[in-house]
């Protein structure tokens, strides 16, 4: 809690109420749902912890180390986890998934697995409280509330159960350090965040432009910014004898960034997100009176542009949330658009089939949800499922682009130092 909230009893009470209610909502989902990737993440960690194979997650080595360390700790505290080692070490993904879901203590293990994300989520709550609105405890508390009850946060962490929150935490910490003008530390932590999840690389130029005061700063901060990735590259080159960067560049996930393109002629093609990203970065660069709120707004614009224009996985939407919750205070309409985004996301995720729809509920009764008719065959029966989903995908893009426009207008006000009207 921040001092300005702590000083006022009514705000302290509200803070505590939001925190408890948020915790309650999170706990309601923790034991019962997960998406297959959670099991894969812990299976790789189990290979390190139970089988001593360190190189099982080459692409995301830092996240893998965190999960391995966490698994190592909980297996001592809760020996029941050891019973799961054959399941976690099972190479056949279908067999391990079935065995995991049919275990009588699947709820306990799922809870233990997800508590790691809860801890990072709580840490993010407290960081976000400090990120903006200095001397405005009411606004800070509202930002806190928007994070605590954010549907995307709850869905991604406690229903979908993905680990993006670890990278988000490091990014928020970097932003907080940037706010406090600890420029080297801020960029260093951002470099760590990039090494954790790679997504924060999108805001690295923004941070460099925001923090740099001299030409020398631009060079030093840029070098520190990519140092995390460079360190991982060196480590993987010597330890695994493989290039991490080229593995990533050739991975399917990198192609997501290039997924929307404009065909010109012969080989000529424009990658729409890359072009849009350059425009966003340049527009930030040319703002003379940069302030921290504008930096946060630009963070929201970058990630909104990403989910608008690129192929993405549902959990990637989490990256827009830390930046958006700040803008909600100044533009209330963005809250409604964000809820609309979430509703549309629930339709868009049908695209990935059973794995992200009915199988998410499998811990409750795996047989029931395996044999239950999936959403895709039902839609296919009446209409082309890809078209159906893409209609909602297009609406999602439209809404996200409109949100970018609203944030852009907010930027103009911030630049002109106009007082904000939260009812806009």
């Amino acid at each position, binding site marked *: 809690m921040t001092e300005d909230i702590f000083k006022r009893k009514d705000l302290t009470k509200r803070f505590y*109420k939001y925190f408890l209610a948020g915790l309650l909502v999170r706990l309601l989902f923790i034991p019962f749902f997960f998406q297959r990737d959670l099991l894969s993440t812990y299976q790789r960690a189990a290979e390190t912890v139970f089988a001593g194979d360190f190189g099982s997650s080459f692409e995301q080595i830092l996240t893998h180390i965190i999960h391995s360390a966490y698994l190592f700790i909980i297996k001592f505290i809760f020996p029941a986890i050891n019973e799961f080692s054959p399941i976690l070490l099972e190479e056949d993904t279908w067999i391990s998934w079935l065995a995991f879901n049919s275990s009588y203590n699947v*709820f306990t293990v799922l809870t233990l697995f997800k508590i790691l994300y809860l801890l990072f989520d709580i840490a993010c709550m407290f960081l976000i409280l400090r990120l903006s609105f200095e001397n405005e405890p009411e606004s800070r508390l509202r930002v806190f509330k928007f994070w605590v009850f954010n549907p995307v946060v709850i869905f991604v962490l406690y229903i979908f159960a993905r680990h993006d929150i670890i990278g988000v935490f490091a990014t928020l910490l970097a932003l907080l350090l940037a706010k406090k003008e600890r420029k080297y530390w801020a960029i260093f932590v951002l470099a760590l965040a990039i090494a954790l999840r790679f997504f924060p690389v999108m805001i690295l130029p923004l941070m460099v432009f925001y923090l740099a005061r001299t030409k020398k700063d631009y060079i030093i901060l840029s070098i520190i910014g990519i140092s995390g990735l460079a360190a991982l590259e060196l480590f993987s080159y010597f330890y695994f004898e493989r290039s991490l960067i080229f593995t990533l560049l050739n991975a399917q996930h990198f192609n997501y960034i290039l997924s929307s393109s404009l065909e010109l002629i012969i080989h000529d093609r424009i990658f729409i997100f890359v072009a849009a990203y350059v425009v966003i970065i340049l527009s930030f660069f040319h703002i003379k009176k940069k302030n921290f709120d504008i930096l946060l707004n630009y963070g929201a614009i970058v990630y909104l542009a990403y989910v608008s224009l690129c192929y993405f996985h549902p959990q990637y939407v989490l990256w827009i949330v830390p930046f958006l919750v700040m803008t909600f205070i100044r533009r209330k309409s963005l809250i409604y658009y964000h809820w609309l985004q979430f509703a549309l996301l629930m339709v868009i995720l049908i695209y990935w089939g059973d794995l992200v729809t009915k199988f998410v509920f499998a811990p409750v009764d795996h*047989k029931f949800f395996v*044999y*239950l008719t999936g959403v895709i065959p*039902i839609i296919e029966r009446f209409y082309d499922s890809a078209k159906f989903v893409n209609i909602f995908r297009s609406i999602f893009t439209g809404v996200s682009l409109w949100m970018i426009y609203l944030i852009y207008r907010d930027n103009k006000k911030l630049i002109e130092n106009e007082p904000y009207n939260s009812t806009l």
Partner: protein
Amino acid sequence: MLTGKKTFKLKKILAGLLSGLILLALTGCSGVFYIPGASYGYYVWEEEGNIFIEWSADRKDSEFEGEISTDGRITSHELKEWEDEDTIMTSEEEIKFMAVLGSEDYSDGFSFSLEDYSYVEFDLKINDGYDLSRINLGGFLETPGDNIFRIEKDYFEKLQKKLWYQKRPFSEFFYKLFSNKYFTFLYLFILGIIIIEILRITVFDRRKRKLLWIVVSYTVLVAVEISVYFILKFLVS
């Protein structure tokens, strides 16, 4: 313009419809509900003394083949959505069938009536193999135990008596909660503490005997925990 009363009624209807949909989604293909061309498997049920057997596939080429026999007499049969390439041979003791489904053919089936019988024996195959979990006998996931299986005359009657908590997914969910009871009680206790804390700062703080309310809340929580134990024990047994 809708009056307040009408709006309330409309809300009630909408809430009813929504809960119905949720219930349907939760219970899945409850009874013999299936979506031709989307659901996959056999669906067997009894209606007005006739036994119905239908099958559906998710618009992929699939072959459904089977034999049905009885110790009584098959007196009549009626085909449903039968195509030229589908075959059926019937006698008083047995029915043999073979049917294919595809991108344009969503489901087939037939019904038959019986007399003087104590059981019906089924041998049902999908794509020349057995997939027992795809055979729904009177309800979703009411599956047989053996490849060739029998159902007694009163099977469907008995099945109707099965209560909601004895059916999937509830039966499995309650089983897991009960067999992992230390987790369940700790989990409920933590949820209870959070709820009591929310009540403490929002409701109890405004009351005079604050401490008393807290003591009462925790007593209720312990009572809930004990009740949950007995309720789960009952539901699982």
